[in-house]
């Protein structure tokens, strides 16, 4: 006990020394630049990573507060001069597609810049023989038809074809959508509207994306990404599928759908798959367009790189660029600039572990060109040594921008993930992409002992659970067995005709009679005996 205490206090001392060291080294920088507290609000989609960045920059003297009140509220707050920055998945809409109401910045000068990237993931609960299917593959068209109620059963031929002939049991599909207005819905419906207008528009009743999913038929609507995830992994979740940001299934240890990209590969939205896709994101540079400076993702949806996750997108930070902005001071602009410098560079290396994706070079460059507008507005803002060339982003090497670093770090998908091959047995929802080297083989499966830790999936690590064997997060017991490995779990759906109404009513009556008998017979018997003995006495 005492030794532990000493150990602990030693560690504490070391921590204090380290902190002081870090503070003193950061000292000169913060002395040079004066900071002021900045306030922002908006997207819940990017809130998790943003809170992490805020606590990261706090020791550097930057005070940032953020309120995750939703994208629309974030835009509204910015327009009303309530906040210093806003974060939103969709830009100011001009006229909102749903409410027909003006959604503008009220004349406040602003710029959009990319801040967090991520994949819209499709998580599902589908049990075959009591085991979760973890390697489901679907094409974009199948997904569009599922969420517009054109495909209503898991044994649909289109789903079977996506999984290379492996049929799923006959079970109605229950799509889970958001009941509140959300940026995630906007991201997904933008994809549907761009790629499958002939399926989406008749369902929605009009063209364009919407923040409020039009729930119909069998669909369940839940409020917030958390509740969508809870509905899917809940007791009544078998057969459900819903769209959430990738970090939610990652935290819930739930599988996600591998979505087919233009190269014919089915990929999961792990960090580098999204980053590769977003290298094709374009920014609208047409100053006359109402969508000026917003993302054009058509290239992302159709990028022919085999590592692309098609439903990749990013959220915007809205920063004030007006020279006479009523809330801005030099200190505030400097805080925004330095906070963004940290977020776009070093902070992006934290994106992957949190279920997001780092922004690739093209978007970071676009971001820096927007940050420079802060200096245009106020020449006192110091931007020296804050540029792409000194940026520590995981998708490129700061000194060598021409080198395609992302191509080296992003792994190629496994051969069995190609359409017409496989399907791979590799379980999704672990944050690790499925590659040729980490496919489970027959020899390693079944020997796995639950290690109790999340599956890190490092290929070839001795003693690590094979990726195919999923580990129950609650008990640490490996639940996946040989069934998952190599082959997808498949089953022949059989509907048993046991327990029909006729049976239950007959057995119900019998049970009721027995109960009545059980209660009455002993009493009647005793009464009869007593009567007999009474008559016996009298005679």
């Amino acid at each position, binding site marked *: 006990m005492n030794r532990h205490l000493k150990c602990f206090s030693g560690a504490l001392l070391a921590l204090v020394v380290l902190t002081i060291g870090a503070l003193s080294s950061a000292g000169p920088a913060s002395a040079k630049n004066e900071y002021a507290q900045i306030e922002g609000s908006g997207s819940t989609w990017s809130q998790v990573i943003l809170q992490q960045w805020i606590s990261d920059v706090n020791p550097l003297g930057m005070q940032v507060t953020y309120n995750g*009140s*939703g994208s*629309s*509220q974030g835009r*509204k707050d910015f327009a009303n001069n309530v906040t210093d920055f806003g974060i939103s998945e969709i830009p100011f809409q001009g006229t*909102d*597609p*749903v*409410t*027909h*109401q*003006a*959604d503008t910045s009220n004349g406040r000068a602003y710029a959009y810049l990319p801040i967090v990237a991520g994949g819209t993931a499709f998580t599902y609960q589908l049990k075959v023989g009591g085991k979760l299917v973890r390697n489901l593959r679907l094409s974009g068209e199948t997904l569009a038809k599922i969420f517009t109620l054109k495909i209503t059963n898991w044994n649909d031929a289109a789903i079977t074809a996506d999984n290379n002939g492996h049929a799923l049991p006959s*079970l*109605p599909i*229950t799509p889970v959508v958001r*009941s*509140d*207005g959300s940026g995630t819905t906007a991201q997904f419906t933008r994809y549907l509207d761009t790629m499958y207008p002939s399926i989406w528009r008749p369902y929605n*009743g*009009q063209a364009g994306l*919407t*923040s*409020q999913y*039009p*729930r119909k038929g069998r669909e*369940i*609507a*839940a*409020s917030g990404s958390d*509740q969508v995830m*809870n*509905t899917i992994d*809940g*007791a*009544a*979740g*078998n*057969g*459900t599928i819903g769209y959430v940001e990738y970090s939610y299934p990652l935290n819930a240890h739930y599988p996600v759908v591998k979505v087919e990209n233009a190269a014919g590969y089915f990929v999961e939205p792990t960090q580098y798959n999204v980053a590769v896709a977003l290298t094709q994101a374009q920014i609208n540079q047409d100053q006359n367009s109402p969508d000026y400076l917003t993302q054009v993702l058509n290239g992302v949806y159709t990028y022919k790189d085999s590592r692309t996750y098609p439903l990749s997108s990013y959220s915007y930070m809205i920063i004030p660029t007006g020279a006479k902005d009523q809330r801005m001071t030099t200190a505030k602009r400097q805080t925004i600039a330095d906070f963004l410098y940290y977020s776009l560079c070093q902070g992006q290396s934290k994106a992957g572990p949190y279920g997001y994706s780092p922004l690739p070079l093209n978007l970071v460059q676009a971001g820096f060109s927007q940050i420079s507008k802060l200096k245009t507005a106020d020449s006192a803002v110091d931007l020296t040594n804050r540029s792409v060339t000194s940026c520590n982003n995981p998708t490129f090497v700061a000194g060598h921008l021409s080198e395609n670093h992302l191509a080296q770090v992003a792994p190629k998908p496994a051969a069995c993930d190609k359409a017409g091959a496989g399907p791979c047995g590799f379980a999704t929802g672990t944050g690790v992409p499925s590659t040729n080297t980490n496919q489970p083989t027959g020899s390693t499966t079944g020997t796995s002992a639950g290690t109790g830790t999340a599956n890190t999936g490092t290929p070839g690590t001795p003693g690590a659970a094979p990726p195919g064997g999923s580990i129950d997060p609650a008990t640490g017991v490996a639940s996946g067995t040989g069934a998952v490995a190599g082959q997808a779990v498949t089953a022949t759906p059989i*509907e*048993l*005709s*046991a*327990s*029909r*109404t006729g049976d*239950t009513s007959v057995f119900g009556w019998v049970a009721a009679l027995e109960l009545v008998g059980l209660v009455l017979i002993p009493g009647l018997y005793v009464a009869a005996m007593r009567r007999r003995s009474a008559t016996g006495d009298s005679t």
Partner: protein
Amino acid sequence: MTTLPREHLDAVEAVPRVLASTNTGSDRVFAYVARSTGATVLVITGGIGVFLAVQSVPTLKHYGLHFFTQTQWQPDADKLGIAAVLVGTLEVAMVAMAIAFPLALATALFISEYAPAKLRSTLISLVDLMAAVPSIIYGLWGFFLVEPHASEMALFLQRHFGFLPFFHIGADPNAAVWDRSRYTASAFCAGIAVAMMVLPMSCAVMRQVFSQTPDGEKEAALALGSTRWGMIRTVVIPFGRGGIIGGTMLGLGRALGETIAVLLIISPEFLIKPRILEIGTNTVSALIAGQFGEATGIQLSALLTAGFVLFIITLIVNTLAAIVVNRSRSGAGTDA
């Protein structure tokens, strides 16, 4: 019949003494403070009502009375109405009261009549503690713990009482694998969570009225050979009838306005549906909470109008409850 001695009647006619009632300064200050505090409550409540009423003018101008008959809530199609959500609100409240009323009545009777004196104060504070639990906790409790069992209960009810229209569910109860998702996120599931929230309030009112039952009457009933239950049936319950009705209505007022627990559990649906066990319903307060963040313009005004309607309904229910409770305290219930 007792008779009074005669000579007293011949005495000088009784003249009431004149009381000097000049208020001292501190009395006046106290009166002003008390009066203004009381007035503040009225001003705040009235202010809320006036604010909501003003905000709902554009909606009522635009949609007119169709706002009350339209079931759909589709801002893009310019169709906004609260017929479905009002019915949903009543359904959830009714389910909640159906569960909470017997529980509250039994709990109140147990605490005031049966519980050992030592245990009584503990039980009272436990029930009061239930009122202090935040409603999001009840929502999570309802979603994670109750809903799986409630869906099984719903299946049971459908199987055996499915001939009743409100227990009907659009799914085969005898399927080999029952379609579980159809039995969740219903008015029934939300009602259970809401019942737990209204129970402490109803119970407290009932218990207070029961505890005011005159001991003399209770003892009289016992002296006449009544059992304890007979005494309760003939004395306590008739005396506390006002409290029972009032407590139930106060609970109903709370059930109508319950928000976050309902929002967590239900899957919003804009249909007038009598099927309380089937997935999908919506209430006014859950609608407001769910849509407020993204609403602008006419939709925002429509949400506030829905809030106004709820405000009026709750005000009426609570006022009626207060009147009933106040009347019962005078002991008027004894002659019933």
